[in-house]
Every structure is written in C-alpha cells, then in structure tokens.
C-alpha cells in the first residue's frame, strides 16, 4: 500500500500489516508458569485484604493467589469465577491501578503491587482452556427471567440466575453479544476474539437463550416482558452520546469516538481501516484515550487529546494517561472546542483556553487552532432508549438495594443504572447482585 502516516486525509493502510499486527498485539501478554509463581510468591495473604475490598466483585484475591502458589491454578480460577464470572475479561480490562493493585500493601511499601490482574488472567486462562463449563445448574425452578442486554451486566445476571436453576432469555439489540466487551474495549486488551470466546464459555452453563437483533423499544416492551416472565433485568448500557453542539459537526471527518472504536473492533483487517493523518480527540476519559491511542497505532501521524478542564480532573487514570503519552499521543488540557473549521470536510478545530474559577469553568478568551482531518468526540455517553415510566437519577435508571427500579419486578444494573463507576467489573457486580435479589424474590 502506498499510504504513510504523512498521507493527507482519512485513509487506510498507513502502516504495513505486520506493523499493525505488532501494534495491536496483547498489551499485557500472559504470564508464563515461572513468572506466575514468582509473582504469586509476593502476596502476603493479608488479613481482610485491601485488594479484595477494592474489587467491586469482592474476589478473594489472597486466596486465589495462594492457590496459584500451591500449584492449583484451576482452584484459583474457581475462587475468581464464584464471585465474577467475567473474571477473564476483567483480568484484561480492569484499571487495576485504581482498584485492587492501587491498595496492595506492596504498592504502599515498595511502589510495586502484586500483579493481581495478570495473575487473575493466568488462572482464568488455564481453567477456560479446559473442556466444558465449571459450574453446574441447580435443579430447575420453573421460573423465567428476561434480561435486556448481553453486556457484562446482563451476562453476569443471566449466568447467576441460570446457575440457581432459573431459565433466562437475553434480548440484545445488536447482532452479537458481549456489549462493550465486543464493541468498546481497546482491541489490544482483549485479543484473539476473547469477548466472543468468553461469551460462548459463559453460556455453557445452559439454561440461557440469547435472541440477537431484539431491542427493547421498537420490538419489546417492559410490560410485555413482565407479562411473559417472572422478572426483568435491564442491562442496556449507555446507547447515546453527548454531542459537541457546534456548527459543522456534520462535516466529513467528525465522528463519535465510540462509533470509530466499534468499527475498529469489528474490522476484519485493521490495515484496511481508514484513519486521519492528524486526529483530534475531545474528551478526558477512557474512551478518549482508547480512541486516541488506537488512531496512533493505526498510523496517524499526530494525535491530540483535548480536555476542557485541568489535568487533575482527567477521568482517565494516571496509568492510562501514561499509556497515551508513551504511544505518542499529546494531551492538551484546559482547552474547549469552539469552532469546527473546513469546507464540507474538516480542516481544523478552534479551541478556547479555559480556567477553573470559583463559578466553575470559564473561557479565558484566548484561542488556538489544531489542524485536523479527523475529530473524534468522546465527551461522555448517556442512557438512551430506556423504557417509559422508570424513575431516573442523573440521567440513569434510579435503583435501590441490589438494582431494584421503581417498577415492580424490574431490576437494572451496569452502565444504565445510577451509582457505581462505569466499568466492566462494576457491571458484573451489579448484574450478579441483582440476580441474587431476583432469586431471593422468586424463591422466598
């Protein structure tokens, strides 16, 4: 291919296929057996361990690490899966530096935590490579539950319900399951089609039917589901995005970052995926970082993240910011886009400088331009397409207890429900806990 990072416009094939393959290889390759033993040996088996408390799914981390250390990684994996059936994906995508590993006593003592995420991956990989599914279903209860959304929240909920003997039907609007595991997570975090493999493995419990291309809204209604099922769980994630609200947002080259990422995740051949020469990403979270880094890895010459507040307010963790910088992404803070320039096609973005003041963020009046042929907007996702009649809280479904909504027999969890961080592991915890609550209601 003739394109290079310097080729103007949005084009494919800026890098050779082999470079692309290198760039998108597993970012944290699996530990070897020797590495795992050395890493496991460092765990102190702390009492009431801070790591386990920091894990939203409360995995018994010291126990699973001890099980690795004593040569039983399969038992270690069971310790993980009993709490978090998506422990394989979480081992790959959890921001451990702000969860378990942040509070590891060895992080405090030496600045080097036990490598909990990688050890979790070591154990779960071993058990998942075995034939069959490690859990058995309880005797059938004859109860049926509908789950809307086959993302982490819906899958965790469905698996737990199936294990307890209920029959589950999952409805997902998309043609494929996994939610953002399949369409959102950075490609180098879950290589080798792991999201689909994990989904198939999870469904191995039995008792779960998935219907793809079935959306709540046009196709299905909560009332209809309530009539047909004993309980309903909503795990629909965040279908909408915040828009910039500037003129010119329809120019060629302006796009939602999540759409760009979803296309990237589904691309058969990444070398055939077009990317700009100069890419500007607006936002300050995980989505912004992932869009920027992956643009760079596809061969963009210059990638800039522009965030409207100060560096201390970036929601991307220090580790992710470091990762972006190491990948060659520039991060500009205190800059808010004020105009999209170009004639039909994006040519530049004008930013206004901002300052945090007593009355909130204000523009200083000074501006600058960033030349760009691609602008990716990552300023937050919002709930959309939620059923009528649900009490809301800050734009998300209001819940009490383990995901109970304002409608009887309807639970919600994951990104679409209020409370908790928007993380895979939080979605898993909320789905699982809602399942336990549903179960208690159905059998109590």
């Amino acid at each position, binding site marked *: 291919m003739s394109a290079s990072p310097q080729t103007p416009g949005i084009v494919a094939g800026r890098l050779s296929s082999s470079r692309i393959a290198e760039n998108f290889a597993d970012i944290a390759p699996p530990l070897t057996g020797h590495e795992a033993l050395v890493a496991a040996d*460092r765990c102190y088996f702390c009492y009431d361990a801070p790591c386990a408390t920091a894990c939203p799914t409360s995995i018994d981390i010291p126990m699973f690490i001890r099980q690795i250390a004593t040569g*039983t990684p399969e038992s270690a994996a069971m310790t993980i899966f009993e709490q978090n059936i998506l422990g394989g994906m979480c081992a790959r995508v959890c921001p451990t530096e702000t969860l378990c590993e942040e509070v590891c006593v060895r992080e405090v003592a030496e600045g080097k935590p036990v490598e909990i995420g990688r050890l979790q991956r070591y154990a779960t990989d071993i058990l998942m490579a075995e034939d069959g599914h490690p859990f058995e279903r309880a005797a059938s209860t004859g109860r049926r539950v509908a789950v809307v959304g086959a993302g982490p929240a819906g899958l965790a909920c469905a698996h737990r319900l199936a294990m307890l003997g209920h029959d589950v039907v999952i409805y997902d609007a998309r043609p494929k399951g996994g939610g953002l595991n399949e369409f959102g997570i950075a490609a180098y975090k879950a290589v080798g089609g792991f999201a689909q493999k994990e989904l198939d493995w999870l469904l191995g419990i039995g008792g779960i039917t998935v219907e793809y291309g079935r959306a709540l809204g046009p196709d299905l209604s909560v009332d209809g589901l309530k009539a047909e099922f004993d309980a309903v769980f909503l795990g629909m994630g965040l279908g909408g995005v915040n828009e910039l609200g500037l003129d010119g947002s329809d120019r060629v080259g302006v796009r939602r970052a999540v759409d760009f990422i979803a296309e990237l995740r589904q691309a058969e051949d990444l070398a055939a995926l077009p990317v700009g020469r100069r890419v500007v990403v607006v936002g300050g979270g995980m989505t912004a970082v992932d869009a920027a880094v992956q643009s760079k890895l596809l061969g963009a010459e210059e990638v800039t993240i522009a965030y409207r507040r100060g560096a201390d307010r970036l929601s991307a963790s220090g580790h992710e910011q470091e990762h972006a910088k190491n990948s060659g992404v520039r991060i500009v803070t205190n800059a808010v886009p004020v105009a999209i320039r170009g004639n039909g096609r994006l040519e530049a973005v004008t930013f206004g400088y901002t300052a945090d003041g007593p009355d909130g963020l204000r523009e200083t009046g000074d501006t600058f331009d960033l030349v760009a042929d691609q602008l990716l907007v990552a300023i937050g996702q919002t709930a959309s397409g939620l059923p009528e009649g649900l009490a809301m809280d800050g734009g998300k479904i209001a819940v009490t207890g383990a995901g109970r909504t304002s409608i009887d027999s309807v639970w919600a969890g994951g990104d679409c429900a209020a409370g908790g961080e928007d993380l895979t592991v939080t979605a898993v915890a909320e789905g699982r806990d809602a399942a336990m609550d549903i179960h208690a209601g159905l059998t109590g």
Partner: protein
Amino acid sequence: MADLRTDFVGIKSPNPFWLASAPPTDKEYNVRRAFEAGWGGVVWKTLGYDPHIVNVNGPRYGAIWGADRRLLGLNNIELITDRPLQVNLDEITAVKRDYPDRAVVVSLMVPCDEESWKGILPAVEATGADGIELNFGCPHGMSERGMGAAVGQVPEYIEMVARWCKASTRMPVIVKLTPNITDIRKPARAAKAGGADAVSLINTISSITSVNLDTFSPEPSIDGKGSHGGYCGPAVKPIALNMVAEIARDPETAGMPISGIGGITTWRDAAEFIALGSGSVQVCTAAMTYGFRVVQEMISGLNQWMDEQGHARLADFQGRAVPNVTDWQYLNLNHVAKAKINQDLCISCGRCYAACEDTSHQAIGMSADRVFEVIDAECVACNLCVNVCPVENCITMETMPAGATDPRTGRVVSGEYANWTTHPNNPMATAAE
C-alpha cells in the same frame, strides 16, 4: 468433588485438617472462628491442673525467615494453657455442643502419677469431647517439672501413662510424641504397648533461633536471657515426615493410626503426610502465620488433586508412599539418571554451575555466552543442580533407559534391579539368588 470426610480412631471430622494443640486452640473465641473458617477439628490447647501455670511476660517466639521475610521456622517458650481448668472445660463443652460434626480432642498434661491422670479424665469426658491427646512432647518449661518431653523421652513412662488412661476412659487416647529423642520408634512402640489408639507427631524441636550480638542473649530474649524453645513451621516438615514414615513402616507399629504434624502449610504438605500413613493432619504455625482462612486453600487444593488423581476418598491414597520408604541398602544401584537443563527455561544465573563446579563433579559446562549444559560423562545425577536452580522444572533428572551406555562409567545400563546387598564392593555381599 472428592470426599474428605475423616474417621480417625472413631473421631469424625468433615476434613482431615485439625488445628494442633497450641495458641490457635486455647480458647472458645478462637475455636469457633476456626470452625467457621472451615477447620475439620481441633486439639484443644493442653490442659493441666490448677493452679494454672503462668507464661513469661515478654516475647515467647523467635523465628527464622527465608527470602522476602517469609516465615520458615518459629520457636516458642510458651507453656500449656495459662487459664483455669474449669474455664477451659466449660468452653470445650459449649463448642462441642454447637459443632457436633467437628472433631474436638483435648490435650492433657498432668504430673506423672496415676491419680493425677485418672483424676482429670471424668471432667474431660463430661465435656463431650471426642478424644484425648497426651502431651508428652513439650520440650521446654514443663519438662523441667517432670512433664511433657521429660515423660516422652522415657518409653516406659509413655506406656504406663497410656495404660492408666486407657483403663479409665472410653475416649480414644492419642499419644503425642516428642521429636527430641534418638529413635522415634521406641516411644511409638511404648504407646502401642500401653494400649493407645494412635500417636500424633511431631511436637516442637528444641532450638535456639538466633543470638543477639549486641546483648549476647539468645532470642527470644527475656531480660537478657533465653531458653531452649520448641521449633516448628515449614522448616521442621522433613523431620516430621521422616518420623511419621519410621513409625508407619516399623513392623511393630505398622498400621497404628497416626495424626501427622509438623510444618504443614499447604494442601500438598498435608497430602504427603497422608501418603505416609497419617489419618489426620494437624497444623499450628501455618494458622499462626496466615490466619484461620489458610485452611480453605488446603481443602480446595486437596480436593483438586484428589479429583485429578481419581482418589474418591482419603483412604484411596492414605499410606500409599509407605512401601516406598526403604533402607538405603535396597535402593536400585542399576538406576542411572542424568541431569538435563531445559535451555528454554534457563535464565543463565549459573547457580547450577557454581554448585557443581565448586562442590560436586564438574559436570556442567559453561560457554562464553553463558549457556550451561550438563556433561553426561561427568554427571553422577546427585540432584544438587536441580535443588539450587531458581526456576522450577528447568533442570530435571532424566532416567537412562536400559540398554543405553552411561558415558561416565562406560557401562551399559541394565534393566535389572540390583542393590548393595549383592554388590561386588560389599564385603558382606550375599550372592544374588
């Protein structure tokens, strides 16, 4: 899931993991929490007559550590329980009532006369406890008063006390042996002769863990002085396994139930004790180092291994290693092996080279670019390189097949078994039949 249920001389427990008589079992609060964590049974901290003994009011423990300050050996100068007898008996009664499925054994140590031993048994029986363990092991303090190891070192006393107890109680009697003795078979035989139902071993080993070079006091130091504390923890496991095996294969005591104790820290340690004949295992230091939850790894690990091996219950492998413990003279001298270094796993530290070159048989070659390879013509298969290598399974012992020529001796490896008793160099050799 394998069946871990245990029946040890009629004492039943849901798994073979018991807490040994020691601080973890010296009060109701501890034992309840231990049972909640999953322990199958406890041997209550040793009881004695009132007035109860006292402990030192300074440090009781000393220790040695491995890399990363991992606790490898613990020593202590603690005595038996320092609480009134009735307090302990009441607590034992309450715990046994609430946990009928768990093993509750009561450890005892009283002066070495018939009246003392017979006198305490009815009160213990009244607690509902499942059995008693006679503590003839404590190597410090109590032995100065003619109890503990002072009794355990005299087989005649062991036999006598065991007989008194058997005659006076319906409860099974377990004799806990001290390792501070030359030949462990003697006290075990004495226990059997006295009618004891089982032995448990080992108690702690007399030790001094370190000397403070500023004060010249042994550690742990009480006001500048120390004593001969009892040693336990991972470091003592090989000594304990050896003694368990000696009793298991001694024709006079073979088949006598054994509760294995000493350095058990993981499921694997426990499985090894059971393979050498133990019917239950007891743990102290691992619980004291890591807390009661450590039993959960022991249970899951033993379960997994038994499932993988197809052992449905403990009896399926209990004692399986005993016939393989033999005298040196019966080892097969025609078994020839060579060390082999896996170059993919080797990290080129050179520890194997230092060990072999400096202290063994100069059987490892080192190239200018730090590739280490075994020279088969020199290797005697001593295993030292395997043991000093930091990478598990990087260096292995490969058996030479029959018919191959050993490049060290130039001899063809025989497929026949031949031992020292028939070896030509043995002046006492008997002709092979």
